[in-house]
C-alpha cells in the first residue's frame, strides 16, 4: 500500500494506483476526458493535470502512479490555469450547439467548463467544420463537437476487439473515422455513445427525444437477457425513453449490449389489462380488486393448479406463485437468440436466453420448457402468470378446468376461458429482485407508474394467498424477499439491505464471483 497526500487529505491506496483514482478515494474528482476505468490509459486529453510537489512539470493524474509520500495539489493556480487552458482550447473549434445538442445537461465539457473554464473565449477565427456522419448501428457522429478523447476508438479496439473506428488525419484536421461499408454494427457498439463525454457520438434512437434534465432516473436491471446488466432506466412523462448501463464490476463492467439497450419499448406497452375483471354471464366485466381476488381464491381453493409463468417475473412473485401451486406444477418458456460476447470483458455477453429471471424461476421449481402448456393436467386450474401466451392456440387451454390470468395483458388465447383477470405491473413498474445466469440476485426498482388499476405482482399474489387463508402480510417486496430467504436455503442470509444495488450471489451460486474489473486497467 502507498500513502500520499492529496489536497491535504491523507490517502492510502494499493501500489500501481493512479493519482486520479487515488483522488477519488480522497473524495476529489479531478476533471478528465480521455481516462475511463474500463479502457486502457491514453493520457491524451491533458485535462487531468495536477501539481505534484518536487516534480518539475504538471502531472497527468490519470497516467501517473502514486508514490510514497507524494504531495499532490489539485487546485493550485498553476493546475487551475493549465486545466482552464485545456478547456479553452477544446472550445475554440467547438460549436455553440448546446441549445440543439442531445448531450446538453449531461455533458462533461459543459460540466468542467462551468467548474473551471473561462467565461469568454479569446478565439476570433473561423471554426473547423465537418458534416455529421451515420456510423451505422445506433451511432451518429458529429465531428464538430468531437474533442478527440479517443474513448470510442479504444473501446472498439480493446474492449470490443473489433477496430471499427480510427483517428483520421492529423493535427486540428483530425476526426474519428470508420471505413466505408464497415459500420458500427458490433453487438456492443452503442457503448461508445455512453463513453463519449460530449455530444459527438449520439444515439439515433434517443435523438431529440428528451432533454437530460427532464429525465427521471431509476436504478434497475436490464430484463432482456439472463446476463442481468445493471442499468439506469430513464423516463420522461412516464415513458421509458432510454436505458443506460450502470457500472457493476461483477456483472457488466461499464457496458450493456445494443439489443438490451434499445429493447425498452415493450415496457411502455399500452395495450394492457388495466382493470380487475371477473366473468359474469359469459363475459368478462370490470370489477373491484376485492371481488376479483375473492373470485380467484374461490376458483383456486383446493384445486390442483398449473402455473404457466414468465421468466420476467421477479423472485418475489415466482416465490409467491409456488405457494399457490401446492401439489401442482409450474413451467415457463423463454425466447432465445444468438449469444454475443463482449470479448474484452470476462464473462460478459448478450445471452441466448432473453429474459431476466430464468435462473430464479428454475431455482424456485419452475420447469423450463418449449411447450409451455405441456404440463397442464386435465382438469387443472391454469394460472397464467406474467405470460401473454403469444403463439399459443386457445385450444391448448381446453384441458384446464378454469383459467386465472395474472398478467399485464389479457392473452388472446385465454380471453374466452379466463374467469378472473388480475392485471399486474410489468418489470419497469414494480420493485423486486431477479437472479442472473451466474446466480447473482440483483434488485430492480420502479421506473414508471403502472397504468389504470394495475398493481405490483407480488402485492396481488400476496393478497391472493391471504384470501386462500395462507400467511401474507406483505406491505413491501422486501418483506416477501425476507420470507423467501427464510424458507429457501439458496436465498438464505440475503436481504434487500445486503443486496444493495450491486447484488449478491446466492449461497449455492455455480461459478464463484467473477474477477472484478481492475480499476484503471491498462
Amino acid at each position, binding site marked *: 500500500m502507498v500513502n500520499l497526500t492529496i489536497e491535504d487529505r491523507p490517502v492510502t491506496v494499493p501500489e500501481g494506483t493512479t493519482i486520479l483514482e487515488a483522488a477519488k478515494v480522497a473524495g476529489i474528482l479531478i476533471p478528465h476526458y480521455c481516462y475511463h476505468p474500463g479502457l486502457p*490509459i*491514453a*493520457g*491524451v*486529453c*491533458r*485535462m487531468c*493535470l495536477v501539481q505534484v510537489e518536487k516534480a*518539475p*512539470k*504538471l502531472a*497527468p493524474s490519470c*497516467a501517473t502512479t502514486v508514490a510514497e509520500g507524494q504531495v499532490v495539489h489539485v487546485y493550485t493556480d498553476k493546475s487551475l*490555469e*493549465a486545466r482552464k*487552458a*485545456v478547456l479553452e*482550447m*477544446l472550445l*475554440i*473549434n467547438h460549436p455553440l450547439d448546446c441549445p440543439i445538442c442531445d448531450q446538453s445537461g449531461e455533458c462533461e465539457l459543459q460540466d468542467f467548463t462551468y467548474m473551471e473554464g473561462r467565461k469568454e473565449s*479569446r*478565439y476570433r*477565427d473561423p471554426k473547423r467544420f465537418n458534416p455529421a456522419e451515420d456510423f451505422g448501428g445506433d451511432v451518429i457522429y458529429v465531428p464538430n463537437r468531437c*474533442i*478527440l478523447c479517443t474513448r470510442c476508438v479504444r473501446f472498439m479496439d480493446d474492449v470490443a476487439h473489433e477496430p471499427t473506428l480510427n*483517428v483520421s*488525419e*492529423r*493535427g*486540428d*484536421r*483530425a476526426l474519428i473515422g470508420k471505413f466505408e461499408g464497415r459500420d458500427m454494427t458490433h453487438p456492443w457498439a452503442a457503448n461508445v455513445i455512453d463513453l463519449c463525454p460530449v455530444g459527438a457520438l449520439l444515439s439515433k434512437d434517443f435523438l431529440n427525444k428528451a432533454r437530460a434534465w427532464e429525465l427521471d432516473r431509476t436504478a434497475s436491471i436490464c430484463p432482456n437477457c439472463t446476463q442481468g446488466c445493471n442499468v439506469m432506466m430513464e423516463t420522461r412523462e412516464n415513458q421509458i425513453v432510454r436505458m443506460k448501463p450502470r457500472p457493476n464490476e461483477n456483472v457488466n463492467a461499464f457496458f450493456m449490449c445494443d439489443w438490451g439497450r434499445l429493447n425498452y419499448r415493450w415496457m411502455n406497452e399500452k395495450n394492457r389489462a388495466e382493470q380487475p375483471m371477473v366473468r359474469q354471464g359469459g363475459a368478462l366485466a370490470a370489477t373491484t380488486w376485492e371481488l376479483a381476488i375473492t373470485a380467484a381464491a374461490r376458483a383456486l381453493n383446493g384445486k390442483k393448479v398449473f402455473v404457466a409463468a414468465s421468466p420476467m417475473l421477479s423472485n418475489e412473485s415466482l416465490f409467491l406463485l409456488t405457494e399457490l401451486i401446492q401439489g401442482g406444477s409450474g413451467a415457463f418458456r423463454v425466447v432465445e437468440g444468438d449469444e454475443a460476447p463482449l470479448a474484452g470483458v470476462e464473462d460478459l455477453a448478450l445471452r441466448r436466453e432473453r429474459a431476466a429471471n430464468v435462473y430464479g424461476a428454475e431455482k424456485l421449481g419452475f420447469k423450463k420448457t418449449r411447450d409451455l402448456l405441456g404440463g397442464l393436467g386435465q382438469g387443472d386450474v391454469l394460472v397464467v402468470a406474467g405470460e401473454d401466451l403469444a403463439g399459443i392456440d386457445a385450444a391448448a387451454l381446453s384441458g384446464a378446468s378454469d383459467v386465472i390470468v395474472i398478467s399485464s395483458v389479457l392473452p388472446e388465447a385465454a380471453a374466452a376461458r379466463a374467469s378472473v383477470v388480475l392485471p399486474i405491473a410489468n418489470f419497469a413498474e414494480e420493485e423486486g429482485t431477479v437472479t442472473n445466469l451466474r446466480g447473482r440476485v440483483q434488485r430492480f426498482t420502479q421506473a414508471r407508474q403502472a397504468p389504470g388499476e394495475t398493481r405490483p405482482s407480488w402485492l396481488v399474489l400476496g393478497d391472493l394467498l391471504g384470501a386462500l387463508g395462507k400467511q401474507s402480510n406483505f406491505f413491501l417486496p422486501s418483506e416477501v424477499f425476507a420470507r423467501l430467504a427464510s424458507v429457501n436455503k439458496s436465498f438464505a442470509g440475503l436481504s434487500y439491505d445486503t443486496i444493495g444495488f450491486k447484488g449478491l450471489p446466492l449461497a449455492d451460486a455455480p461459478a464463484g464471483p467473477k474477477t472484478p474489473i481492475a480499476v484503471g486497467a491498462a
Partner: protein
Amino acid sequence: MGFPHHPHPRETTVLSKYFGDAEARTLDGWKKRGGYKALEKALGMQPADIVNVVKESGLRGRGGAGFPTGMKWSFMKPGDGKPHYLCCNADESEPGTFKDRELMRWTPHALVEGCAIGAYAIGAETAYIYIRGEFTEPLYWMEKAVAEAYAAGIIGKNAMGTGKRVDVYVHKGAGAYICGEETALMNSLEGRRGNPRIKPPFPAVSGVFGMPTTINNVETLIASAPILLNGADWYKKMSLSNPKSTGTKLFSVCGNVQRPGTYEVVLGFPFKEFLYDLCGGPLHGRKFKAVIPGGASVPIQTMEEAEATLMDYEGFVAQGSMLGSGGVIVIDDAQPMVTVIARLARFFAHESCAQCTQCREGTAWTTKIMERIRDGEGTMEDLDTLLDIGEQMTGTTICVLSDSCAVPVASGIKKFRGEFEALIQGRRFHPVTAAVA
C-alpha cells in the same frame, strides 16, 4: 566540409571527410578509407567496455536532445532474456537541419558500421534504420550499403566471422515530422500512427514491440566508430569551451548566408567567426538580423546573442537559445520576422499528431493569430494571447512539439517585439528599415 563548398581550413572534418567523394559510398571505397575497422574492433570487445569508452568520450546525442550517449546505452540491461533493439533515427525533419542526409548519401557504410557497433554494444541483434520517406537518395544508398554489407558477411547472422548476429534493416517513413520523436518513431515502426507515447515506460524498458530499445541519431551512431578507433581521450580533447561538450558536430547552415551547407567544427567554436568567416557572412547588401541556431524548435537569437556564443550545448544556453540539432537558420534584415515565425507555426500545426489538446488546438490557433498579424489584422491583445497560449503549450503535453511551437513565438515576441507591433499598428514591413523598428 562546408559541403557543398570546399572544406574550410578551420573545420575539423571527422565525420564529413568524404562528403562529395563518390567512391566512399561503395563498400570497397569505404574499406579503402579505413571503413569497418571500428566494427572489427568492437566485435572483439565486451559490450560493456564499448559502452564505457563511449561514456568516457562525452559523446552526446546529436539529434537535438544532447543526452549522453554512453549513459543511454548503459540503460539496456544485459541478460534479461528479451530481444533488444536499436533504432537509428534518420527521420531528420527539423527545419534547418540536413546533416543526416549528407551523412547517409555520402558515407552510407559509416552508418551501417555505426548501427552495428551500437547494436552490439546494447545487446541487440536487430537494428532498424528509420529513414524519412522523402529522403530518396539516402534510402537508395543505405539500402545499397546494407545489401553490400550483408553480401560481404560484415553484418548478418555471422558478423565479420565472429558468430555474432547483427541484422540491419532500412525502414522507410511516410511523411511525418513527429516520427523523429523517439517514441513516435517506435510506434511508426510498429505500423501505427506516429503518436508519441507517454513515459514511463521508457524505451530502454519497453520500447519497440514492447522490448528494450535504444534510439540514436545518425550522427551519434556514426561518431561511435572513430571514438572506438581513436579512444575516448582523443574525442574528449576536442572541446573548445566546456568539457561537458566534446567532439565535433555537423552544423547545417541555411538561409540568408553566402555559403549555406554542412560544416563540421569542434564544439565550443566561436559562433561569430563561424557565421562571418566560415559561412561567408551575409548576402551582398544585407545584414544579419537573427539566427535560429539549432533547428526550428530552439529560441531565436539576436545577432548580439549569436555573436557572443560559443557553439556548444552550454554556450548556446548561455546566449538565450540551445544547440538542438545544429540546424543554423540565418535570417537577414530583408525578412519580416513575423512571416518567418508564422510559417514555422504553420509547420508545427501541420505536423501535430493530434493527441494532446494543447498541441492539436494550440498550434493551429497560434498559426491563425500569427497569420492575422502578418497580414495586418492583428491586435495588441493577440500578443498577450499568443504568449499565454504558448505558456500553456509548454510542459503540459506528451511530447515537446507543442513546446517547440511556442518557442519561436515567445522568443520572437520577446526579442523582435517591434516588428510585431509595427504590423499591428498598420505599418508595413520594409527590409531596409527593419533594423530600426
